[in-house]
């Protein structure tokens, strides 16, 4: 291996070996657990678990071959199996939220959730993928070690000063940014582009499938829907560029005007300033399940746990409690994002 290659490899090893306070991914874990809880309770509440996830012989709508080892092992899409798995899934979602049971619970939660949602292949949503991905990353990180019942039971405090691996959070960042960029690239319909007059959101609001209530009034504010369409499309497509921000913050000691500018300006704030209203808009106007909740949950990973703690303190104006962990300092002395 040449010298330059060896240095790069060593830098990668160091990057993947970083550790950071556990409360950052703990907050993510809580939000993921709540999203999973909502996804499962809403299915049970509406009775659709026994419609979409059960074969016709037991009163369901369709017949499907079990697409998950757990479902196949339990005997397939029967009313009894689904009737048992749904409460188990809800119980596991509660445990994930409370941080009880550590990695085994995160593993079981991921498998049970996959078994359930893949029982109805015609009605899976993007949020199912995001929840499944999040549970896997939380499992890799061991994200139940802070802000959890586990911490309370084992260490006598809710938020012990514990560090965990940082790379699962980096993967979560890459995951959500890739989701946005690829979703933007998939938007090949002319209404998303200048060719179609940036009319996409207007058409979405006219369609009966997703809207919560009559949105025909959007015809009166059509230019606003055009601006929102253009902003949404460009923002989604360019989401992966946020990685440049992280790279420049990591290499702050190197020269360059853009790099210097990015030390002063936090691009994540601009990213979130568009993303949060977009998801709140979706939440209010359209019924796409917990899609906005789980997407916003990933936003917690955009910040280093110490930055989250500082932001939280500023928001709540409380004294320091949880940022005793040893975050590696960045070039400017603050934690690396």
């Amino acid at each position: 291996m040449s010298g330059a290659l060896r240095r790069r490899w060593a830098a990668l090893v160091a990057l993947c070996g970083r550790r950071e306070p556990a409360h950052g991914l703990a907050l993510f874990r809580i939000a993921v657990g709540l999203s999973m809880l909502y996804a499962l309770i809403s299915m049970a509440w509406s009775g659709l678990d026994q419609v979409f996830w059960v074969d016709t012989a037991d009163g369901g709508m369709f017949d499907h071959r079990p697409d998950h080892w757990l479902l196949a092992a339990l005997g397939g899409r029967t009313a009894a199996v689904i009737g048992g798995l749904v409460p188990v899934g809800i119980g596991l979602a509660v445990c994930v939220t409370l941080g009880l049971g550590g990695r085994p619970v995160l593993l079981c939660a991921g498998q049970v959730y996959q078994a359930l949602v893949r029982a109805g292949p015609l009605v899976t949503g993007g949020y199912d993928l995001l929840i499944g991905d999040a549970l896997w990353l939380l499992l890799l990180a061991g994200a139940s070690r802070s802000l959890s019942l586990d911490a309370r039971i084992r260490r006598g405090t809710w938020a012990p000063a514990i560090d965990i691996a940082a790379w699962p959070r980096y993967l979560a960042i890459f995951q959500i940014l890739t989701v946005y960029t690829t979703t933007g690239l998939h938007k090949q319909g002319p209404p998303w582009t200048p060719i179609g007059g940036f009319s996409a959101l207007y058409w979405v609001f006219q369609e009966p499938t997703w809207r919560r209530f009559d949105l025909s009034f959007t015809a009166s504010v059509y230019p606003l829907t055009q601006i929102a369409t253009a902003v949404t499309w460009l923002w989604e497509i360019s989401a992966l560029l946020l990685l440049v921000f992280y790279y420049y913050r990591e290499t702050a000691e190197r020269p360059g005007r853009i790099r210097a500018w990015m030390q002063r300006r936090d691009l994540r704030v601009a990213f979130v300033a568009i993303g949060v209203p977009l998801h709140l808009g979706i939440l209010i106007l359209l019924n796409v399940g917990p899609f906005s909740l789980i997407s916003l949950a990933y936003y917690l990973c955009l910040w280093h746990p110490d930055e989250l703690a500082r932001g939280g303190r500023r928001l709540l104006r409380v004294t320091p409690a949880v940022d005793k962990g040893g975050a590696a300092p960045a070039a400017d002395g603050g934690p690396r994002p």
Partner: protein
Amino acid sequence: MTGRRRSLRGAAAPLLDPLRRLWPSLRVLVVGYHLALIVVLSLPSADAMLHRPNWESANTKADLAHWAAALGRVGVEMTGPELADRLWRTAEALSGVQGAISRPFVDFSRIVGFRQGWAMFASPQRHPVELHVDLEEGGAWRPLSRPHDDAAAWRRATFEHNRYRKLAGSLGRRFQRRYYDPIARWLAREALADHPGATRVRVQLHAYTSLPPERVRVGERPRGVDREVRIFTAEELR
């Protein structure tokens, strides 16, 4: 630590120590594998690209006609069907590549539940369908279920769930009889179970074209047609 556990650790040390030394490098490979998985599986899958019903919907045909017209304006003359034919052949070629590069990731992704890739509102639906359920009681038909209609709000909590919406919406995006018929039969069976006095149930798709803003602003409402009508009698379902 108990003595038994300590002795077990001691016995495993020759195996674990080299692994511990290697772990920092292995960890880079694990992270790299995940990054590659996220990227590769976010590419459009062969199933999605080569799913005929997707290409035959009114929405897709309108999109293709729109793109063909745009190409015509820059000197590339081609009709919507010709563009569809070219894109289909490109998709066939790409699906082979996508299939090959995703092979190392698919099984892992399925087993651990770390998946990727979907298209949200990729092309907004301008030709939606509504799933309508009507009931015949005392020789007269009455609407039982219509989206966003307070006068026909049977089992609204169920039918307003996002997963049911997804299913209903997909009938407009890519109609497939093998899915529509079971849906219609299930709806009819449930309607008769809730209304024992009914004699027949009618399930149909109400299809229309969404109106542009200038027509909505003057108070016009879309007019649709009913299609894929399925009528079930009480005798056949009870």
